[in-house]
């Protein structure tokens, strides 16, 4: 991909805070219409990267171009074409739902007259029309997040940045948010999101980078990463106490790789159903589960750690 058609282009992008290197020379490109994700645990450098893309944090080193512009020179102009859904809600609690969208649109210099109609459309889109005249404070966490998404779309952004869009939401609320984001993706909105939920990354991202300790460990589509870095299936054995230490050689070539976690053993294989009874007999686990490989397994393979502790 050439620099010219990438909406976001980073080479050797770096961010330091004192002695800590939060982002350590990463390269990536995001193209138009794509849903691009930064997957990694807390502290991996995802939010620092997002803040640099959002032009609210100066680039510490390397090159960054957003919409073809330099954040250092054109921060306000770039921000005018971005939508931002921050990790921490910053809604105006004393205003109504509709007023929140309107006043936010005013920051972008949009006319009040146009904003009234725009607010109604956006609230319709995030399914908050019935709450339009209610104050924000009593809304549920999921509704507040949807309102934040509506607000971030007020300027019809070229790129929507979402920092941990469903962290702190209950499963049902997460699915509603995902559904809306999926709809945006279908409409051709470019999404850039950070998440430490592998299911979120699998659901939403066309392409993602796995981040750990400020570096990009791998890059690809969710399915491609799983195919490349894991087996088709996983046999997961649970133990009441410490899991036994096992080597893949104990399974006569049926197991490609073994991960031993504090209470679990994961056996990576292409045929889980065939392996499960053998493994159960050999190790005497409390429970045995056969499942498909996920990004969690990819992450484990890359970093030796789980995503969510």
């Amino acid at each position: 991909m050439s620099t010219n058609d990438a909406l976001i282009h980073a080479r050797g992008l770096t961010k330091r805070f004192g002695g800590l290197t939060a982002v350590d020379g990463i390269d990536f490109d995001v193209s138009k219409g794509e849903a691009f994700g930064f997957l990694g645990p807390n502290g991996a450098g995802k939010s620092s990267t997002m803040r640099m893309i959002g032009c609210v944090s100066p680039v510490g080193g390397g090159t960054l171009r957003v919409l073809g512009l330099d954040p250092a020179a054109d921060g306000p102009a770039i921000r005018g074409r971005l939508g931002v859904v921050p990790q921490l809600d910053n809604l105006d609690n004393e205003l109504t739902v509709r007023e929140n969208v309107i006043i936010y649109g005013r920051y972008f210099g949009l006319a009040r007259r146009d904003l009234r109609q725009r607010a109604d459309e956006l609230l319709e889109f995030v399914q908050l029309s019935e709450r339009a005249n209610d104050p924000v404070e009593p809304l549920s966490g999921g509704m507040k997040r949807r309102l934040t998404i509506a607000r971030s779309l007020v300027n019809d952004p070229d790129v929507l940045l979402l920092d941990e869009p469903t962290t702190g939401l209950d499963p049902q609320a997460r699915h509603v948010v995902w559904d809306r984001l999926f709809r945006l993706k279908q409409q051709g909105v470019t999404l850039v999101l950070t998440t430490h939920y592998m299911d979120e990354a699998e659901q939403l991202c066309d392409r993602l980078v796995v981040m750990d300790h400020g570096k990009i460990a791998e890059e690809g589509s969710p399915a491609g990463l799983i195919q490349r870095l894991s087996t088709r299936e996983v046999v997961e054995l649970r133990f009441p106490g410490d899991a036994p230490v096992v080597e893949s050689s104990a399974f006569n070539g049926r197991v490609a790789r073994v991960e031993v976690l504090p209470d679990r053993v994961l056996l990576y294989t292409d045929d889980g159903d065939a392996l499960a009874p053998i493994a159960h007999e050999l190790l005497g686990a409390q429970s045995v589960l056969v499942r498909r490989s996920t990004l969690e397994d990819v992450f484990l393979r890359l970093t030796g750690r789980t995503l969510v502790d």
Partner: protein
Amino acid sequence: MDGALRAYEHWVTSYRRLWRASIVSSVLNPVLYLTALGVGLGKLVNHGPHPLGVSYVAFVAPGVLAATGMQIATNESSFPVMAALRWTRTYYAMLASPLRVRDILIGHQLYFASRVAVAATIYLAALAAFGTLHSGYAIFALPVTVLVGAAFSAPVAAFSAWAPKDAYLSALLRFGIVPMFLFSGTFFPVTRLPPGVREIAYATPLWHGVDLARHLTLGTATWGMSLVHVAYLVAFAGAGLVIAERSYRKRLVL
């Protein structure tokens, strides 16, 4: 400036939700003060020879006017600034738009100035009703009160953005603003203070505001002293803005 006005619009819109309560207090406060100090305390003070040359209520009213400017400005630029940075995170919402740090700062300061201006207008009307305005120049006490407000709201916003925790703000109000309210010539001439303390009073921005407002309402202002007062207050506001922009930037732009 356009950006600052858009940030200002946010604060005015929010204010519309609670203006009733604040209008009541800005009408009620001066009336209570003037009644208690002028009519009550003044009865005692006005006995005997007139050391002030005017009735006590005429003396104290412009002092309370300037001090009110200080108080509203300080209240608005302390906890609300910390809240916009830490609790409601309103400044971060603004920064995700084309608004710049400077717009965010100036927009909020314009709002503080408006709050002071509204209260000062009501107050001046009350003073007129109490018959304490002795000169047409009294109208200039209005911009002077707004300037007093800026001389406080800018440095206090700088302090509140920098302050590591909210206890610092309570301390500022308790050990900075309250003593200034009492000893900067609001209720009695600072010449009554012992030497040493008197000089401290002269150095406070409030004293400059009180003295100027008083000379304007009593019709005794001179150009020289008035310009000194204005320059002193402008310097406080200007230095406050420069420092505030730095401390805002430190918090908002990591």
